[in-house]
């Protein structure tokens, strides 16, 4: 058992106001670091500015990072200050000063973290309710942007996505082409297993479930090429289940649609048959009969 330190061996009482020092250092570091991080790092965040939803996601990530930065600064300052000021002297055999409860600090910590969490919850809810933030909202979406929208259906199948345009007579294509500056209503579904439609630069990600109509919204901006990937492990060729999509001018979209209609005409009679006859007229979901199809 260690001997009780005598009064003579105890270190002199520390009259330094460590809390004040830590707070000053923390505020100084936060005032410098937070705007720097928000400005320099925020703009590097995914998914970029390919759509209104993408821009909002960059803002969301920047706000999150800006809120986190002072917290990280506090931890870093306290860590460094503690190492520097509270370490035992070399060769010392005495205990450090005892840790005592301080209800003021506890309350401050609980209130501070509570405010941060509640703010982020409110901010996140506000962002989600604007237009769904690019996420799939199921068959009955809550956050529906106003105005007219171009409907596009995304169909997942092992292993590629195809796209149907109900406003163009239900034509189907393996190319996803969208007009610029347009509100698009994506209806995501699957013919077989669970896939996930992820249009990275557009900030859209929605699960493709068989028999389910998962609705997501996106507002396109200017012309661009974007990547589409499956984000749900879906079998042998999951890693190859990707293609490119394009946002084009309205004139180019009309031209593309005319060309696709001509190509589609060859199979339109088959597509428009009833499902019982092997057709697939446009529908929110499709449930091909696998038991009859296999073999």
């Amino acid at each position, binding site marked *: 058992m260690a001997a009780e330190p005598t009064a003579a061996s105890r270190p002199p009482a520390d009259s330094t106001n460590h809390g004040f020092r830590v707070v000053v250092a923390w505020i100084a570091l936060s005032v410098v670091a937070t705007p720097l991080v928000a400005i320099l790092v925020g703009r590097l965040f995914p998914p970029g500015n390919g759509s209104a939803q993408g821009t909002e996601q960059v803002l969301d990530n920047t706000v999150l990072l800006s809120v986190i930065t002072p917290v990280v600064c506090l931890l870093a300052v306290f860590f460094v200050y503690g190492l520097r000021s509270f370490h035992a002297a070399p060769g010392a055999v005495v205990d450090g000063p005892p840790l005592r409860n301080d209800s003021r600090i506890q309350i401050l910590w609980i209130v501070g973290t509570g405010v941060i969490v509640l703010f982020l919850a409110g901010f996140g809810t506000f962002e989600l309710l604007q237009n769904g933030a690019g996420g799939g909202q199921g068959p009955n979406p809550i956050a529906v942007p106003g105005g007219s929208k171009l409907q596009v259906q995304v169909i997942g199948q092992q*292993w590629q996505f195809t796209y149907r345009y109900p406003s163009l007579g239900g034509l189907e294509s393996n190319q996803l082409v969208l007009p610029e500056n347009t509100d698009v209503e994506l209806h995501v579904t699957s013919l077989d297993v669970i896939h996930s439609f992820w249009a990275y630069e557009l900030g859209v990600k929605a699960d493709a479930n068989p028999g389910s109509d998962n609705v997501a919204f996106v507002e396109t901006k200017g012309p661009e090429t974007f990547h589409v990937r499956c984000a749900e492990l879906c079998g042998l*060729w999951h890693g190859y289940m990707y293609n490119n999509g394009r946002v084009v001018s309205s004139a180019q979209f009309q031209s593309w649609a005319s060309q696709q209609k001509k190509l589609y005409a060859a199979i339109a009679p088959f*597509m428009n048959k009833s499902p019982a006859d092997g057709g697939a007229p446009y529908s929110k979901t499709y449930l091909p009969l696998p038991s009859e199809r296999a*073999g």
Partner: protein
Amino acid sequence: MRPGVKLLLVAAALTAAGVVIGFYVSNLTSLAGSPTYTPPVANASSGHPVVNLQIETVAAVGPKLSPNPDWVSYLIKNNGQWQRKTVWDLPANATVHVTIYNFDGASGLRNPYLARPQGMVGNQILVDGKPTQAVDPNEASHTFAVPALGLILAIPGVADDAKDPCGYAPCPMSNDHRTIQFTFHTTTPGHYRWQCFVPCAAGWIDGFGGPMQTIGYMDGFLNVKA
């Protein structure tokens, strides 16, 4: 044990694990172990390479060609022999003439959109010698698709009441079959997967397992080389 020795042992173990994982990934990506078919290449008068592929699609690959004799499969003809190889080396910017002999029955397309041949020369195929721009989805037996090249075509099946259907592969030409012909062009060098889109794995849940999920049966690669 001294801390330095411990650290050294941990570092050595991590390095060994990394090397093993590296070999495993390298083995996967290079498809080592998957038999590859390299067809003879002729040079057309234009100077572009020309390749002829003869393919057979069979309902049951048979015990001679697979440990899974009842699995549906593609076969490739090599020196007069049908072989179960679905990784094919092709030259870049080549003209590839393909003839598919299908001995399997119709099972239908899950997505009738795939009934329109696309991505080949003229966006049409010859079915038993007849130019075709759309196959009846109900008559489709399989598809041959190279999505990265935009190549998709449905393969019509043998009639249900065929008089002389093939049992196990390799199937002689005397058995009932359909003949599909088309020509496509390879592009830049790369590793292009091809697949069948019809869930045709009989005996598996919804037809999606077994030969549909195994390279060497209904899936493969085009290794397009410079």
